[in-house]
């Protein structure tokens, strides 16, 4: 949430559905309250908006904007689930698979992974069309209670914001530029930081993939009871409209 004081309410539409909002609300915040799901990866409840993954791109007033950062406007007509936007989102997700080493069959985040769930939601039923970059990244298991497998990182930055804004620590940060930009830890390795397993940044809900791992709890939740075993990502928002 931006923290901006809310004023008089107004309405706008998303794919023809009338949505209520107040001044200062983003398109995504208004959509969530109205039970309209807009796909997202870098945005997370309780963290400041970043608008970097672009999976939440919608068309507003004929322009492509990030729904998580773009303020809602009275009378605005927003396009969300159009074939064009869905394809664009699927392309983005495919590129995330192409950039990293996402081996869902052996990943402990499988079933709880937002990237995997987003791929299912966007009907990405085959391997990415883009050639895998197969980066060679080492696993940092130096910390006694936490491991970091950056082969699975999608650079969403949620851990960076959680560590800085919620934990008040700054364990994580970005290094590099362009395609080389990566999440890194503030030290030689994770053991060299003040990260703790109880940090919000380390919690399963903050890392959308299997990059940040709390040690020795992998696969403890059986298949069938994992977060996305019983519904598509976003279903809990969409259920508000039912």
């Amino acid at each position, binding site marked *: 949430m931006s923290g901006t004081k809310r004023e008089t309410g107004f309405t706008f539409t998303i794919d023809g559905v009338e949505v209520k909002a107040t001044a200062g609300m983003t398109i995504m915040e208004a959509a969530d309250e109205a039970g309209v799901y807009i796909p997202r990866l870098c945005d997370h409840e309780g963290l400041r908006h970043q608008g970097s993954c672009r999976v939440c791109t919608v068309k507003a007033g004929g322009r492509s904007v990030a729904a998580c950062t773009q303020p809602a406007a009275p009378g605005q007509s927003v396009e969300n689930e159009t074939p064009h936007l869905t394809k664009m989102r699927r392309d983005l997700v495919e590129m995330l698979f192409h950039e990293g080493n996402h081996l869902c069959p052996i990943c402990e985040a499988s079933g709880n992974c937002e990237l995997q769930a987003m791929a299912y939601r966007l009907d990405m039923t085959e391997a990415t069309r883009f050639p895998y970059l197969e980066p060679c990244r080492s696993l940092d*298991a130096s910390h006694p209670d936490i491991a970091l497998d950056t082969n699975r990182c999608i650079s969403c930055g949620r851990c960076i914001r959680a560590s800085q804004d919620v934990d008040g620590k700054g364990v994580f940060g970005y290094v590099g530029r362009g395609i080389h930009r990566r999440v890194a830890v503030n030290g030689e390795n994770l053991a060299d930081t003040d990260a703790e397993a109880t940090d919000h940044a380390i919690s399963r809900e903050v890392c959308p993939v299997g990059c940040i791992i709390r040690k020795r709890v*992998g696969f*403890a939740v059986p298949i069938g009871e994992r977060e996305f075993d019983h519904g598509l990502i976003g279903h809990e928002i969409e259920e508000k409209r039912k």
Partner: protein
Amino acid sequence: MAEPRLIEISPVTRVEGHGKVTIHLDADNNVDEARLHIVEFRGFERFIRGRLMWEVPVIVQRLCGICPVSHHLAAAKAMDMIAGVDTLTPTAEKMRRLMHYGQVMQSHVLHFFHLAAPDLLFGFGAPAEKRNIFEVIKENPELGKRAILMRKYGQEIIEATAGKKIHGTGAIPGGINRNLPIERRDHFLSNIDEMIDWSRDAVKLARDYTLEHEDLVAEFGSFPSNYMSLVRESDGALDLYHGNLRALSSTGDMIFDQVPYTQYHEKIVEDVRSWSYMKFPFITELGPDAGWYRVGPLARMNTASFIDTPLAAEAHKELKAVTGGSPNNSTLANHWARMIEVLHCVEKIRELLNDPDLQGTDLVETGDRREEGIGVIEAPRGNLIHHYKVDEHDQVTYCNLIVSTTHNNEGMNRAVKDVAVKHLSGKEQITEGMLNHVEVAIRAYDPCLSCATHALGQMPLQVELFDAHGGMIDSRTQCV
């Protein structure tokens, strides 16, 4: 005088994995050398290094799509040891056992009905187009139906215990991640009597074949060997999930007994040969020439003092009576042994389904960390050893896997040579049916070459014929 030849059978069909057979004939068309070559390489032992210990049971089961549960459980047992857990909760141990019995049942049924039955029903030299499961179903629809439904039952047991029919996640270091809900238990109990009846019929089918083809079974790929398996710690009974190591000679003399499997490396050594990606293990004290041994269903029938489920126990006694209680050295008797194990597994499944511990909620134990773990299990194809070392950061630093098909490497090669000598030697023309005899001998071991080379793919068999100077004269390839 004919020119020397080399025959290549590639791929070997109706087995899991990818291999080929080469048969060298001399100038008189007599078999000079015959070998089973494993031409795949997978490298699990290497790339598991660096991964986190609780990922291991989920990663290494990808060695195989037929018996992933065996790798999953063997690795989980090794991780129990590393997690410092020597005794699981009753619910965890029984859920794992249920998973394993479902696995052995479905794998044995797959092999006997889908892979081996065409040879047994239609003859080893039957036309190639006849030798498949579809012809079996056409010829005997009831048998075909049972083959499919029995396998389905075993697969559903796996799904209920591991979360998926193939490549689940049930076993975790120190225990299991689920119990068996009452409604699932009742579903399985509603069909268990039918599964018992069908398993008894399958034992009878395999037994009748073995006894009615006494001469063939006695000579086809048969030779004396040592045998090794786990047996139950207390009394030497057949135990597919846990126990100690026992090895017998071909005449039934004990080579070693009740050896904790954590000492396997003191008892067996792996030899390497330049022409195969698969190693050749042997019993250390006997050396490579005399120390090779066989594992699997027939080996287990030979090593086990008895079976602790009543119907399988009777069947076991009948099989043992054929050789007067001595080890049975007939390769083809593996099919009979395999069906006895199906019956045993179904009896065990019934026993477990009636045990309220399966609905317990105490699923995981913890203990003091160790650096090394060894897990051994009797997989469908035989003894399976997983050995790992893990550092203080929970990362794997060492992995050694000895799978059933590797244990049987020397035995399969001898069977190939035995059958080649008996059925190909002195023949001017080698027919496809003759070559299938070689495959039948390999198939009796139900080899999984994917597991054995730690490989992905179908199982093509190739036979090559070389002259005395090493030049290839003829080659026949069978595709799946």
